[in-house]
């Protein structure tokens, strides 16, 4: 009888201990979950923009979410590979995006591709490369040094923890790519390309160098619009370049789309007025 009671007690202790372990998630995993939720919020915002018919803004939100989620997932793939998982990095990555430039190009506004790239270098002990990447992430005001440094926690995760996080990221990544197909960007990656103001300046510099280089300037304005589709000036740039290229349909498109998101923009309203006058409206 004593033996039976003792066995029962031991079983209870084991069960209790096991259930306790299962329910308690380390805080550093909660941090990662918080980021995944944050990126998921951007995806949902993309859905909201889509529903409202704001495709440029939807692509911006999806792209931001995708660049962030994919860079985190690719970072984990790299860590897993460095921890001995898979024969090659490609084995671990599979068919998913596995190139920092390609991932970053989904939306240069996101600082996370530079950060996670730095983290991989850091893990490998390539401190100079890591520092350079961190610096590039830090230049972007969307990056919060205070909060985002917590993501360094990825470097201490066990392989099983990394795999668990990857599963969550893949779920979100799949959801995003179900509604969003990133267009392969020919615009080069640069740590300053998060700034639409900077990109507009490049466009102006392009025109200053050659006043007829509308296509060159348009390339910069489109890049500016991709990282900030809420600023009327970016729409003005695209509309004007299309006008000088003789593409009036696109001119109307950018004027109208710009006025959706920046209805009070003086320049856009003036252009609209001039177009309407000439169209005999």
């Amino acid at each position: 009888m004593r033996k039976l009671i003792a066995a029962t007690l031991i079983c209870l202790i084991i069960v209790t201990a096991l259930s306790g372990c299962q329910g308690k998630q380390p805080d550093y995993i909660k941090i990662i979950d918080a980021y995944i939720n944050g990126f998921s919020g951007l995806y949902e915002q993309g859905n909201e923009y889509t529903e409202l018919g704001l495709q440029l803004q939807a692509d911006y939100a999806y792209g931001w979410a995708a660049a962030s989620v994919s860079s985190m997932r690719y970072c984990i793939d790299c860590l897993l590979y460095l921890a001995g998982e898979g024969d090659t990095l490609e084995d671990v990555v599979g068919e998913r995006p596995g190139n920092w430039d390609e991932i970053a190009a989904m939306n240069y506004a996101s600082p996370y591709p530079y950060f996670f790239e730095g983290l991989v270098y850091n893990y490998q002990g390539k401190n100079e490369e890591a520092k350079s990447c961190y610096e590039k992430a830090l230049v972007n005001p969307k990056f919060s040094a205070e909060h985002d440094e917590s993501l360094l926690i990825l470097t201490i995760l066990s392989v099983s923890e990394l795999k668990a996080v990857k599963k969550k990221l893949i779920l979100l990544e799949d959801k995003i790519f179900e509604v969003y197909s990133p267009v392969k960007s020919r615009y080069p990656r640069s740590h300053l390309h998060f700034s639409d103001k900077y990109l507009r300046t490049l466009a102006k510099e392009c025109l200053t160098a050659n006043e007829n280089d509308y296509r060159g300037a348009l390339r910069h304005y489109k890049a500016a619009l991709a990282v900030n589709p809420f600023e009327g000036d970016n729409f003005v740039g695209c509309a004007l370049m299309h006008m000088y290229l003789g593409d009036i349909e696109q001119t109307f498109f950018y004027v109208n789309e710009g006025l959706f998101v920046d209805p009070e923009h003086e320049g856009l309203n003036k252009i609209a007025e001039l177009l309407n006058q000439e169209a005999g409206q």
Partner: protein
Amino acid sequence: MMKKLLMLLLILFIIIQPPTVFAASHIDLSRVKFSSGREPVIFTFGDLHMDGVLEQAYPFTEAEIDKLVQETLKAMNLTQLDIMEANKKVEKAKRASEFTKEDLERVKKNMLTTISAVPAGNVTSVLSAVAGYMGSSSWDDIGTASVDLLENTTTSWVKDTAGGFVNKAGELGKNANTVNAVTNKLLAIEKFCEMLADEHARTKQKWKDIADGANAKRMLNEFYYALQRKIDAYKSESDEAGWRILFDQTAVGRNFTFFGVDSNYQTWFLDMILVQRATDEIGSVAGIYQGSYHIRCTHEMSNFQSRAHEAIVNMGEVGSAIKKMQATPGYTVNLRTVSPGKVEIERIISGFGEAEIKPNGEMILSLQPETDEIIVNISGMEVEMDYSVAGSSILQSRGKITFQISADQEEIVIGGISANILVKSPDVNFAHEISGSGTVKAGWDKEIWKHWDGTEKTLQHAGR
């Protein structure tokens, strides 16, 4: 006028651009074109003219489109105010159906002339436009924006923080306190992550404006889609129905003289609808038109009635006899109307009509009457005549005769004559009263129908 005529002749669909503002002032009808839909025509018989129209059976005019707009608004439970508000939120630049290269050049030129603040320095036109229409960046940004940002990348804060990250990553694996230091900030980090999406939605008001604009755009798209469907259906119906010549209770009148009495009034009313039966392949007004017409002619005869004593002298043999008496020396004849009676004269003509409008605008009309009925009802008119023969002491004669005038067709009848005759002479003293019911036919005054009977009936465009 000539221009208008040419338009009618050649056209077919006289297309005019819609104005921006009309009854449905907040509706963008830039894609919709209207036909004139209506041209004046004149029907002539004798010296009389009647105004009618040559119109599209379903005219594709602004007024018609306005009706469709109202119907669409009602069906979608919207008002023009809703459209106005939606327009404010969304599309400011309307899409031009045709925008030529020349238009584009003018816009570019106008853009430069309307820039209030032309940037200083030797700038080219495209750069002027860029600077003039952008709000946030000034010309001075050139070359400095990148410098500012590059400076940021090299600030000691950036360098130190990045270096700190490298070191912290190394420590995390070795020092539990470092991990705790990070995880202690969990709440703040969770808050930060929650704000990621909000940050991209910008301020709440900005997001609301965008969402309102997008919703308005969706509503407008639905509205214009529904309106376009209605317009397409109507236009198809309009094209199929073609044109028609229409006179709807059109009236013309004239003063006329009847049996010598003037100032009677004759009114002609015309209802005629001739529908285009055949046209050319481009749906022009040219072609054959067929249909029916109905004419009613009425008369106001109060002058004739009140001056019957003037009329009677123009009525056949009786009138001739009275005139003869009046003309005979020694006779005194006095006529007066004692009863105006009742006079109704009406004519109703109806039949089949056909018109051909030639491509040069000439119109050929042919009317084939099927019925032509004249209703005459004259009764109760009485004229009294006193006469006397004076100037002879041997023979004296005087008397009074009453004439009754009537008609139930185009033939005046004078009848019911009664007379008192007195003959005096030295030898004879004779007085006698004669009465009788005999009648005399006095004919009809054909002047009443002079514009219709035997005249040519024509149709022509009012501008010709």
